[in-house]
């Protein structure tokens, strides 16, 4: 049998000269991407970690066995009941966000498997597509068992099929990044920015928190996914290496665009989980500290190594790091019925921890939670809608998330008139992204504009049930139903007690 090094290049990098069709027909600009890189330059493409199909299948088989084992051991409702309730809701959020986004990533990788400009890149993209199918199936499999116990877990499958506001935002990002992008933009946006930078927050940092929170199923799931991500993420750096040599401006623009869009997604998804839904005893660092380690330090090193600048809005990003996920969380808490998982009010010890971790922003955020406390004090436990907003909230025309950028003192939302339409953006970077490619975004309607156009109801209960796809059993509530030990409610005057002889017989109809 030939040694591995004798045949591997033939398996992974099989190029030949095309004689029957011109290059422009074989790799049309729309699906393949247009850059200043001369076509022949892509032939230099190399992945640092090389694998064969046989090795791939053997490694994946072992990973699958580990996932099945942990599902058998701790994947049933009786196991999940032991998990702290706030953390269980981080599961519901992640469980919904993952599967069909991963499926879209499989499609993006399959497109790269055909239209990427080098055969080794195409081979890696095919492995990536198989990875992403696996990442679709794992959460669907693991959480399915829990649906009969808690109907909110049904959203693991249901989420992307709804018009829930979070789903609209997630689809808006993933449709562009994974279903519409050419292989070059896919490689920079997904493999480099998303997978090299941000998913470490999920798959390394959050998996550690899951272990400390007593959730080995989540820990195993994300670790199993991470080992795949680490392999196919290398596509990004290899594409970047060639792209920056001939088209540095395009590479920088793609990094700047996808860094901001990805930041907003992870800020909400991971920021909520790390700073609010993880039990205090399991928190090793704040979301900001994890971002500083994995993004501010390590990802910037990657950019600098390739001669790229940090994104032009870096100061805005640093302000956002202190504020954005806190502002979205406080807003989401007061509109918790609009999501499919439950949210928690941070208690006094958690607020002290947040004040310590976020000295620049918490003084302006603490009064918001004091108002939430006041709302619960004035109402009885279980009356979730007694401390819940009803006015229509606002959404960004780029990221489709709520207008929560800036600070409580100064929200940075800004408007734009284009043709006959008015647009609003949460931030300068979101406006910049829109103005770079308005034809991509201008026709999309955010939730507010759907309400104003009569496509969605404006009444809260109607929009929850008729448009967001929620029911009384699945819409989000306060995790503790407002029963916090630390929340002192004033004693309410009781009706005068009657003697037993005066009291009606309550057994009678």
């Amino acid at each position, binding site marked *: 049998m030939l040694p591995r090094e004798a045949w591997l290049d033939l398996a992974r990098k099989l190029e030949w000269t095309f004689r029957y069709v011109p290059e422009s027909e074989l790799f049309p600009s729309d699906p393949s991407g247009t850059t200043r890189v001369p076509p022949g330059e892509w032939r230099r493409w190399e992945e640092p970690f090389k694998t064969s199909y046989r090795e791939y299948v053997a490694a994946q088989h072992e990973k699958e066995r580990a996932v099945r084992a942990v599902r058998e051991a701790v994947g049933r409702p009786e196991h999940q009941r032991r998990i702290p309730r706030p953390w269980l809701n981080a599961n519901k959020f992640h469980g919904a966000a993952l599967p069909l986004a991963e499926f879209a990533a499989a499609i993006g990788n399959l497109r790269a498997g055909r239209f990427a400009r080098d055969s080794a890149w195409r081979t890696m993209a095919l492995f990536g597509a198989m990875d992403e199918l696996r990442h679709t199936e794992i959460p669907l499999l693991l959480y399915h068992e829990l649906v009969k116990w808690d109907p909110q877990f049904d959203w693991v499958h249901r989420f992307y099929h709804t018009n829930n506001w979070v789903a609209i935002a997630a689809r808006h990002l993933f449709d562009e990044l994974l279903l519409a992008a050419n292989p070059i933009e896919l490689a920079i946006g997904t493999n480099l920015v998303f997978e090299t930078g941000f998913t470490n927050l999920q798959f390394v940092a959050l998996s550690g928190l899951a272990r400390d929170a007593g959730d080995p199923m989540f820990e195993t799931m994300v670790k199993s996914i991470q080992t795949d991500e680490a392999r196919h993420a290398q596509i990004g750096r290899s594409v970047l290496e060639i792209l920056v040599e001939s088209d540095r401006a395009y590479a920088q623009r793609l990094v700047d665009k996808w860094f901001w869009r990805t930041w907003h997604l992870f800020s909400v998804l991971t920021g909520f989980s790390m700073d609010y839904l993880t039990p205090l005893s399991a928190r090793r660092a704040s979301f900001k500290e994890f971002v500083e380690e994995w993004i501010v330090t390590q990802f910037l090193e990657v950019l600098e190594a390739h001669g790229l600048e940090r994104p032009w809005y870096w100061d805005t990003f640093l302000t956002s790091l202190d504020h954005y996920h*806190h502002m979205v969380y406080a*807003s989401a808490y007061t509109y918790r019925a609009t999501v499919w998982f439950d949210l928690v009010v941070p208690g006094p010890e958690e607020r002290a921890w947040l004040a310590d971790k976020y000295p620049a922003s918490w003084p302006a955020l603490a009064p*918001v939670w004091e108002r939430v406390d006041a*709302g619960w004090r004035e109402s009885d436990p279980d009356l979730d809608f007694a401390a819940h*907003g009803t006015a229509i909230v606002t959404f960004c025309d780029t990221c489709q998330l709520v*207008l929560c950028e800036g600070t409580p003192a100064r929200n940075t939302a800004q408007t734009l008139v284009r043709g006959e339409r*008015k647009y609003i953006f949460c931030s300068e970077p979101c406006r910049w992204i829109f103005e770079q490619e308005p034809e991509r975004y201008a026709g999309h309607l955010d939730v507010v504009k759907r309400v104003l156009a009569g496509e969605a109801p404006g009444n809260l209960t109607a929009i929850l049930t008729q448009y967001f796809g929620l029911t009384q059993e699945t819409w989000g509530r306060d995790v503790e139903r407002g029963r916090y030990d630390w929340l002192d409610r004033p004693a309410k005057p009781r009706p005068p007690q009657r003697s037993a002889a005066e009291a009606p017989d309550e057994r009678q109809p």
Partner: protein
Amino acid sequence: MSVLVPLYGFVEGDTIGLIVLAHDDDPIARVVSRLQHSARWRVAKFEDARAFHGDRPLDASQTVAEAGLSALERIDVRRAGGSPDAA
């Protein structure tokens, strides 16, 4: 007959922008009051509230039309004294 003028409203101290469904003949004072009421779960009502369109303070007695506001414009509700970074 009055015309509906939906506005983006941002209350100082709040964490999110809100839509206020104003009418062109609503006085600005009413719009401010409604925004503060909608934001009450996160921000306590402040008595010295003042509406701004950009940097331009709006007269509370003027109507939405008189103030020159059209649909989907941004207004801010701030304390009259204003916090240092609210402008």
